[in-house]
């Protein structure tokens, strides 16, 4: 955990436009209003596990510490429980900001898909992109192929149990109109270019 901060923050390493970039994401518009009260961190059940608390992430975004934020582990600990958003006294939608940061980290290559968390979300995205719906078996396979397949050997008994309980489908039951889902994904990719 890196919480020591007394070393000089090199100004030339900062990206002053970072805050504006995050603010342009859905739900990011109010980040400049943050009064650093820490309600988000105090409400977050994952704070203790993060390398930077949610409040600090926001301070770093405003300071332009793009590299540090987008390579931080903290953003991958957000479970999207929305406590911070519900309680923020300034109306900042921090959960949405976390989504934006994860998305940026993936898009701009600040994280490796060898890492478990980014790989999971990316695989999830790909399954939905392909079938229009979730298919757990495809998700696990996609995830395993991205990271280390051996990591998933341990999952086998659980998966088998799920299967026995009728909780895993072998074949995906996707959307019929898969072309439409593909088209939507493409539309969104076009609209997201900023």
């Amino acid at each position: 955990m890196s919480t020591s901060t007394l070393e000089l923050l090199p100004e030339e390493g900062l990206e002053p436009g970072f805050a504006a970039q995050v603010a342009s994401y859905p739900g990011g518009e109010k980040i400049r209003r943050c009064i650093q009260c820490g309600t988000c961190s105090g409400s977050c059940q994952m704070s203790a596990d993060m390398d930077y608390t949610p409040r600090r992430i926001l301070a770093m975004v405003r300071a332009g510490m793009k590299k540090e934020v987008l390579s931080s582990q903290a953003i991958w600990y957000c479970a999207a429980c929305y406590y911070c958003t519900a309680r923020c006294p300034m109306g900042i939608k921090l959960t949405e900001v976390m989504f934006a940061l994860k998305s940026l980290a993936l898009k701009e290559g600040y994280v490796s898909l060898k890492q478990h968390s980014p790989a999971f979300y990316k695989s999830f995205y790909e399954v939905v992109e392909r079938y229009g719906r979730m298919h757990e078996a495809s998700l696990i396979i996609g995830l395993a192929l991205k990271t280390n397949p051996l990591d998933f050997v341990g999952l086998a008994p659980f998966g088998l149990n799920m299967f026995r309980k009728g909780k895993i489908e072998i074949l995906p039951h996707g959307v019929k109109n898969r072309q439409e889902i593909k088209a939507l994904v493409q539309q969104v990719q076009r609209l997201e270019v900023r």
Partner: protein
Amino acid sequence: MLEEIRIGVYVCHCGSNIADKVDCPAVAAYASQLPHVVVARDYQYMCSDPGQELIRQDIKELKLNRVVVASCSPRMHEPTFRKVCESAGLNGYLYEMANIREHCSWVTEDPQQATEKAKALVRAAVARVVHHEPLFERWAPVNPNILVVGGGIAGIEAALKVAAAGNKVWLVEKSPSIGGNMARLDKTFPTLDCSACILTPKMVSVAQDENITLLTYAEVEQVEGYVGNFRVTIRKKARSVDLNKCTGCGRCQEKCPVEVPSEFEAGLAMRKAIYTPFPQAVPNKPAIDREHCRHFTRTKGKCRVCFNVCQVGAIDYDQEDELVTYECGAIIVATGYGLFDPSVGPQWGYGRYDDVITAIQFERLVNASGPTKGKVVCKDGRVPERIAILHCIGSRDENYHPYCSRICCMASLKLAHLAREKTGAEVYNFYIDLRAFGKGYEEFYNRILEEGVNFIRGKGAEVTQKDGRLVVRGEDTLLGRYREVPVDLVILNTALEPQPDATKVAQIFGIQRSADGFFLESHPKLEPLKTATDGVFIAGCCQGPKDIPDSVAQGAGAAAEALSLATAGKVKISPVVASIDPDLCSGCRMCLPLCPYGAISFNEEKKVAEVNETLCKGCGTCAASCGSGALNVRHFTRNQILTQIEEVLAV
């Protein structure tokens, strides 16, 4: 023969306030081309002495008979320039103001657009002023009596000051005793003097002052009239106790069988259905709370215990509400504040955990005459070893109140001190920012720091329970670390908010409210005690959260405002009133019910409507509804407004 119209136009730079956006010389040049304009000048500060002198000179030397000043809002300086005209012998109503600051330079990005807009506003003012007529203010006598509403520290101070000047004052308080919120506090910051010790002498003075008529358990129901001449209807709620007979012996309260949570003790103790709110109450005589008294709530077996034990026969179950009227020249509203109910935010645990209490409850807990006789204990009687004080509960929070409640930082420091003094507990203050803004406050903060109180810069996000103990969760933002601090007692310092009945009170007195719901002053800097209704003043926390010194200062200030009216003995009445052209009036009587002041009557003989100018306040609702065009409002005539509309569109 009509005299020739000669207009002078004065465009103010207001330093850079206007000139930064509006090309003032260009506006003046434009104005000089307009019909009837004899002179058009621009000047640094029109409201300054030389600026005023400029107008005076021109009126005299250029024989101006109309003046237009293009500067700030008429709500600011209209009276200033009206006086300037009058001092040069020109009727003050032959002048018009164009608002090129608040409505133009300050709100417009582009200088060219701002200049164009200023030209339009000036053009309209010039065209309008042509149609102005000389009007004459009248004087009305001022009743020297004064009404003070609200018996907290601000109202008490106001009433005492008015009384000291020799004027009669009625002090109306809705609860059975005066004293207000201050009476509930244990100590006051930063001096730590005992709240009751400094307040009760003032309360007693109120009761003893010959000039003060104290009406407790009473509420104002209606206000009629206008500045200098108000007529106020007050409902004296049935107290069921004859104050003249009652000796305040307290036997009735001892014997009363009904117990109700005490408002004064913030629910930590019980009171009886017949009660004096607290031992030092003024008047120190009880009232029966009919909502809970068994004599009133039961249909059968009506209780008569208090009646039976009273040796002087002061109990009167048949007493009824009484309406009394009071005529006065000025009104001071000092109705105080309410407290935010933290149970609306379940995350703070209030109402769910016994040992989560509010600041006012702690004040009572620590008070020697409070429910525990000053012992600070948890619900189960344990002395707390660790105490958390959470700041900003309901304040600085868009989910509740966006404003800062101003006093909680200092109050929290005081509570931290008292908690340590009484229990030796470790105290943790969870704060966002520490605002120690007053005289001696920063020094007090330093003292509390030295006393070893723990400060965690981070809002207490949640109070929960872990292994049977309360835990405050929050981030220590200075460390950047998440913390779960185990404590035995949590004190929530809750927001000050407008009284629950603020809407009703505002309507009764014609007071406006700001976005936060508190009463709105005329001007945030220069007229903090005045309201939009002449003769109605505000003081204390009804205007917004304040500490005791500020409330006292405002109470005294409001008294000075009211007294200056009373001492002058007369007040100007605006000539902006409705008028009826009897030749045009069709006698349809449509206007009669429209007037909220009953200022229009029907002359049966002439079959036309007539305006009583003393009662009329000049709103113009009648004029807007007159089918025959007979009704008009002076200074806001149809002609004047239509001309203004037409010309404002001409640029």
